[in-house]
């Protein structure tokens, strides 16, 4: 149905990290601004706001997307997962553990985007080659590590995930 655009706000209902939220939101607000500023879930980072750097990657209905170039209203009746969904309590997700052990992060700003991208990669391809890892991660920019340790972390994570 066509909703009358009487003002520029909408009531939306969505699930983030398993919790259902209902909020009124201005239609022009990006998904990442909504998650961070309205819901206060700040693990997802804003790096470029034009869909290039990958820092804002979230899972949208289970698939990684760039939340800086989506609107919050588009998430109405959908489900979103952020980096906060990965670990349970103090128990790191195997991918997080592998990044930690392999020094796959420095400043940590790009890390949430990388972790979710890797989670998706390993769900589709549990034993990726170096070339596949490089191609799959090429949409996420890290300015600190030079990527070697990230690639090592992904290989380690793949082993952990296969063992589970």
């Amino acid at each position, binding site marked *: 149905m066509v909703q009358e655009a009487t003002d520029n706000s909408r009531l939306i209902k969505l699930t983030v990290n398993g919790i259902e939220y209902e909020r009124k939101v201005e239609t022009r607000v990006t998904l990442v601004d909504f998650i961070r500023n309205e819901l206060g879930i700040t693990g997802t980072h804003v790096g470029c706001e034009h869909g*290039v750097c990958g820092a804002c990657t979230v899972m949208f209905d289970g698939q990684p997307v760039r939340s800086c170039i989506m609107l919050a209203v588009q998430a109405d009746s959908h489900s979103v997962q952020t980096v906060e969904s990965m*670990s349970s309590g103090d128990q790191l997700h195997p991918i997080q553990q592998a990044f930690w052990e392999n*020094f796959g992060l420095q400043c*940590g700003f*790009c890390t949430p985007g990388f972790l979710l991208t890797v989670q998706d990669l390993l769900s589709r391809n549990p034993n990726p080659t170096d070339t596949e890892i490089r191609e799959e991660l090429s949409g996420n920019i890290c300015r600190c590590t*030079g990527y070697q340790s990230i690639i090592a972390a992904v290989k380690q994570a793949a082993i952990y995930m296969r063992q589970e």
Partner: protein
Amino acid sequence: MVSCLGQHNYMKIEHSKGIGESIKRLEDKRFLQGQGHYIDDLQLPDMLHAAVLRSPYAHATITNIDVDFALEQPGVVTILTFADLHSVKPIPIRLNPYGSLEPFLQYPLANKRVRYVGDPVALIIAHSRYQAEDVLDNIVVQYDPLPVNIDAEDKVSCPLHHDAKDNVASNFVQQKGDVVEAFNKAEHITKLRFTSGRHSGVPLETRGLIANYDATQEKLKVWGPTKVTHFNRGVLAHMLEMEEHTIEMIEPDVGGGFGVRGEFYPEDYLIPYAALMLKRPVKWIEDRLENLMACNHSREQIYEMEMALKKDGTILGIKVLLSNDQGGYIRTHGIIVPELSAAIFPGPYRIPNYRCEVRSVLTNKTPAGTYRAPGRYECNSSRERLLDLAASELMIDPVKIRSMNLIQPEDMPYEVGTESLGENIVYDSGDYPFALQEVVRLSKYEENRHVDHDNLSNKKVGYGIACFVEKTGLGPFEGARIEIDQTGAITVSTGAANVGQGLETTLAQIASSVLTVSPDSIQVLHGDTDLIPYGVGSFASRATVMAGSAVYYAAQKIRKKLLKIAAHTMNCQVEQLIISDGDICMIDHQDKRLTLTQVAQQSSPRNCPPDIEPGLDFTHYFRCNQMTFAHGATIVKVEIDITTCAIVPKHVWIVYDIGKAINPQMVKGQIEGGAVQGLGGALLEEFNYDPSGQLTSGSFVDYLLPTTTETPLLESKRLDRSPSTLNPIQVKGAGECGIAGIGGALANAVADALGDSGNNVNVLPITPEKVWQWLMPMQDKTN
């Protein structure tokens, strides 16, 4: 010669716990779980949001600004222009201020004239960032365009600044020996003009600030500063005409620094100013388009070089005319970047006669400052390319021309004859020939280069070498305070900053090695001006060297006190005690021991013996007026498709000596991260301007950062052959060794791959199109 103050009792590692071990980083757990606190993660009640109106012109006079209509728009609280700023001052220089540079300083908002695209013109404060941006187009600014200068070598351009006769901000010479005589004696002269392109640090997190006036504490609080928080507090106090102690600067988690982040920029004044004026919290988060035009650029330099040699390749002397493109203003770095270029240009080589004339010139571009290995990435690239060109002309192997001219270990300490940052450049230690041999061995350069050259396909392989010396551990001091509370909890506080490099871990490792506790039991606080009265910060690869040494001495002080109190409690002599696994025990009866917590309880004012001052709280300021120099050598292997001219870096080898590593894996990360940033500047990243001064690579679509697919294999090897004698932990800084040599090595590798056309290689970044142009004359001949 001024050395580091006091005698060093070099660290005796009683327990290896901590130092030299690649423990997992202590800060990572929060980053991995999305629990870091970066500036934009912080929200204060009642907070307002700022946006900056920036000049769309590269050079223009502002004839009028009309904000009336904009002020009436929804959500707008106020709009500030230059005229609204009360007793505003220009932003002062942080490093080596020269009075002669004052006419070129930047005011927080443009005063009747804009000098680059992005120059701040007005500040909008609104209830949301969305609303603040809504009125950017509603502020009516009348610009009267002026002639635009985007060429640092253009000598007859329109002066950018009223008080200046031309655009040369600074013109100076560094020299040693007699260059004229050297060229008279020359058997061969090699000439090269080499250009380093404009690029920058571009941290993944953009800048951001929150300022709030806390009426109960009568204190202005500013969240978001980093790198040099104590210095910036002084600048802000000066500019706002406040007492320094009424301002607190608080460093959040920081998403990368690389030299550009944390300097005092216009917004660092504007946001606190607005918060004070409105008595409400104000937040400003730089967006990426702003970041690429507002945050310091770097690297744009042109080197006109001449080198006098003997036929055998011995260097007799070098002459350099260095043009530095400074952009529209002199910012906090003054002219330190080209000064460092001139000072470090001789690099690891014996150059008996040297003259470098520097011209730092204002242009209508974003102002330039420091970026990881400032001045050295550029001068090393230029010098190493010059060496390969000379080797090619004299038909000498690139390894040989380097080996025969390198400074030898017995020459140490070696006085270069140049100066920078107020210090004579004196290399303290290092075995430069060994580093070169090692990288040649590691890369199998001798074996593979000829095999790869004989390959007849369209893919041409080349190897390039660069040797480098890196200045690290800049003084004059850094402090650390260590506190053990009565529960035994250990806290280290320092004025150095954590810009993402892992300072919390390295400092905890150093403290833990003295106190024999687990590093993860130590909390490290940093970057808040209220933690410690004096601080310098994190730049010039200094944090581990300077803050690490301060932590080491402060930990020694606290250790001594722990032993004293334990001796009293255990009724024995201090000499009978050691500290082991965090407990204080008797050397001869190790079962007789007190835990750290027990001793901490005994140190409280309630329990402490009357003749001992209670408390476990020590501060040490480590002072040093001499830099400690790391060094190394880099080899890059590239593959060039001579049909498309695609350039693929295949492999990088870096051998480096930083004396000693606190955490080897973290050091390796610094090397690899620096190397890839350097490859970015050598192949992909460039701020381009059109003739009207518009930045044409102002987004991540056009400013190309390297990703996993553009990154080659990196192999690095750390040598621990030349421990620093200037600090007790014997370390040199590691942060800039990965990037220092890679531009030159890459350029040389491309030249090597291009064979007869290789001598054309004279610029960074090297794009496929440039390779095509260099190859074209050859192809025309063969056609």
